[in-house]
């Protein structure tokens, strides 16, 4: 067996073990939650039952059910006996009746509490044992994940035609995980070491690394199974040559035929699964997908059928594919690791929980549910925070809009452009985005630039006159046609326009690029409460908030998104004025005059030539 085959076989076993552990963990988690809830109930009951009179106000039915479930009692009539005791206790303690419980009732109550105590102890012990098991399986899962990750990385290296380097000590550590594992067949344990040495010898001797798979043979196999993938295979020749494993493809196709699903996949999905998946992953995912009402959806998403079960591995695979993607046109590899079935399920559950109503067949829904979960949550949270999604409109909100990239940044821009946030006093436009949320998607980047420029240059009234359509309350449809003083079509046009009209914050604010990196690499940032107590933020709150509007700060007519500032500052506040300045201007397109205005207001000395001049003048 070749080294690559040994590693692939190992991967199959590891993924199988990983799924087994996931199942155990899932079931243990459910049991743990159940036991913890029962313990909490018993604990509350026992705490109250210390004083016998409290029993009269306790709903004991849950405790009785637990005692019956765990066979501490068998007589179901106990709850009615307890009812009589509670009535008596109410008479004694609430209405002052001169009576008391008889001995039999006292004995019954004491025995009931005693049994509840015993059950509490039993469950606490059970919980601790379950937790121990959970941790041990969890550790084992972590170990498996780590090994999967190592092998995946090593396999990428072996497959990379251009990587002629020899395997290193780090790679040997991966090999050792197989050669030292006593559960692996002795022959394989020895063979993997021999192949490792051979591989390095071949690299040193300059032997060609890959036996490329003949694409015609791959086309022929699919034909044998009644599928014509010629066009798709020819489009991705280089990926097919490098990644097609004839046995693997046959195994997958045989399995698909056996469960009658081969005809359900589009050509691109089928090829992607056959190149980057294996029979085990398809089988395991089919078990889950076939139970779903909306199973049709998953036949349009190849990555749902591929080993993308673990976040860390997926991220690494995605990263690797992405890094190589642009350079070597290996689109299918990137597509294969776009999102796991579990993440898709999580996204669907999340959206339903948040109140969105949709059918997975609807146009655009597929894009949204295959969006990165963090990005999706950020979009939903921020659209709610900025008042675009409300309880009243959530069920009808277009789900496809949630896949929009950089939603928060766009919302901030709409606020600053006087089209959201309700500040500017132009009722028709002050919350324009709420009426037309689709604009979040189809406002092109150049339009933001043009609007920022016009708004800062001509003032609010002229600005609205310039951008209004002849239809009342709507924006003109031709904003990027010269109407706003320029038409920006090419990346060069855009760059020149930015350079000519706006300040580059990186040239004027110390450490700006570092701040920008931090802000850009964080999702779902929450505004820290303590940030609002900082004197510099209190200063903004006192001097730049208008009418308690939560969305805007206004610097002498210049509108800046307040939520943006607070969010950014929560992330990058390092006690310097530069971090405050960066929090304010990040994502905005500010003219020199506006930029200076903000800097003066927060008493920040700008860097760059003008900043130097200002410092000299001040001194």
């Amino acid at each position, binding site marked *: 067996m070749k080294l690559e085959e040994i590693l692939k076989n190992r991967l199959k076993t590891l993924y199988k073990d990983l799924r087994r552990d996931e199942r155990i963990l899932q079931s243990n988690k459910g049991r743990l939650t159940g036991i913890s809830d029962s313990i909490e109930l018993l604990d509350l009951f026992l705490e109250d039952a210390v004083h016998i009179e409290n029993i009269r106000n306790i709903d004991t039915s849950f405790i009785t059910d637990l005692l019956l479930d765990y066979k501490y009692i068998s007589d179901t009539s106990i709850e009615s006996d307890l009812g009589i005791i509670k009535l008596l206790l109410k008479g004694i303690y609430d209405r002052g009746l001169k009576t008391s419980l008889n001995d039999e009732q006292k004995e019954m109550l004491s025995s009931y509490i005693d049994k509840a105590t015993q059950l509490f102890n039993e469950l606490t012990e059970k919980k601790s044992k379950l937790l121990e098991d959970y941790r041990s399986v969890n550790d084992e899962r972590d170990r498996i994940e780590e090994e999967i990750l190592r092998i995946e990385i090593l396999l990428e290296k072996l497959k990379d035609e251009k990587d002629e380097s020899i395997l290193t000590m780090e790679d040997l550590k991966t090999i050792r995980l197989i050669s030292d594992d006593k559960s692996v067949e002795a022959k394989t344990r020895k063979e993997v070491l021999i192949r490792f040495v051979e591989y390095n010898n071949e690299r040193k001797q300059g032997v060609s690394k890959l036996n490329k798979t003949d694409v015609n043979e791959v086309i022929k196999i699919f034909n044998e199974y009644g599928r014509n993938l010629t066009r798709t295979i020819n*489009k991705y020749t280089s990926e097919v040559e490098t990644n097609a494993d004839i046995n693997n493809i046959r195994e997958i196709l045989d399995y698909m035929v056996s469960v009658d699903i081969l005809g359900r996949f*589009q050509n691109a999905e089928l090829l992607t699964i056959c190149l980057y998946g294996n029979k085990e992953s398809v089988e395991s995912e089919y078990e889950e997908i076939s139970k779903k009402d909306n199973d049709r959806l998953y036949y349009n998403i190849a990555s749902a059928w591929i080993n993308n079960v673990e976040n860390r591995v997926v991220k690494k695979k995605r990263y690797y594919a992405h890094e190589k993607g642009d350079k070597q046109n290996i689109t299918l590899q990137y*597509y294969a690791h776009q999102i796991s079935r579990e993440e898709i399920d999580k996204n669907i559950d999340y959206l339903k929980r948040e109140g969105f109503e949709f059918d997975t067949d609807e*146009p655009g829904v597929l894009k949204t549910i*295959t*969006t990165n979960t963090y990005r999706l949550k950020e979009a939903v949270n921020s659209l709610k925070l900025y008042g675009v999604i409300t309880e009243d409109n959530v069920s009808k909100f277009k789900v496809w809009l949630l896949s929009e990239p950089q939603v928060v940044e766009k919302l901030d821009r709409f606020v600053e452009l006087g089209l959201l946030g309700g500040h500017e006093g132009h009722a028709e436009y002050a919350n324009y985005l709420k009426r037309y949320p689709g604009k979040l998607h189809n406002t092109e980047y150049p339009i933001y630039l043009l609007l920022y420029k016009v708004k800062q240059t001509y003032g609010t009234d002229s600005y609205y006159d310039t951008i209004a359509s002849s239809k009342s309350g709507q924006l003109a449809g031709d904003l990027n046609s010269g109407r706003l003083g320029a038409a920006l079509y090419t990346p060069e046009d855009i760059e020149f326009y930015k350079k000519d009209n706006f300040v580059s914050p990186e040239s004027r604010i110390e450490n700006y690029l570092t701040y920008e990196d931090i802000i850009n690499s964080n999702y779902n940032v929450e505004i820290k409460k303590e940030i609002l107590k900082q004197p510099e933020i209190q200063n903004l709150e006192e001097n730049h908030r208008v009418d308690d509007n939560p969305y805007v700060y206004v610097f002498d007519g210049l509108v800046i998104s307040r939520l943006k500032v607070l969010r950014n500052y929560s992330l990058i506040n390092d006690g310097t004025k530069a971090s405050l300045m960066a929090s304010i201007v990040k994502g905005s397109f500010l003219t020199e005059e506006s930029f200076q205005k903000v800097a003066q207001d927060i008493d920040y000395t700008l860097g760059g030539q003008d900043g130097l001049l200002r410092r000299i003048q001040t001194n």
Partner: protein
Amino acid sequence: MDYLEEYKLTKDDINEIINNIDEQDRIEYDVHEENITKILDYLVSKNINIKPLLMKKSYLFYTNADKLIEILNGINEKELLEVNNDIDIIDDLI
């Protein structure tokens, strides 16, 4: 995405489209060529201008072609043609 040239889009048009869509869309347009050509064939047959749709309404092209065509067939042709004047109409039509 060279296949878009078959729809009378120039290399510049295609570049403009690429510059206006996100990475997820780029992968979608590349990988699901067959589904997308089916949708484009339909739109072209109805005299709909496809470039703005590819650029600004990428979400449409993630839909199964047969399903989308079924939806579009249910729309009055005159109303559908209005998309050429105001692209946002499509959001409400489907």
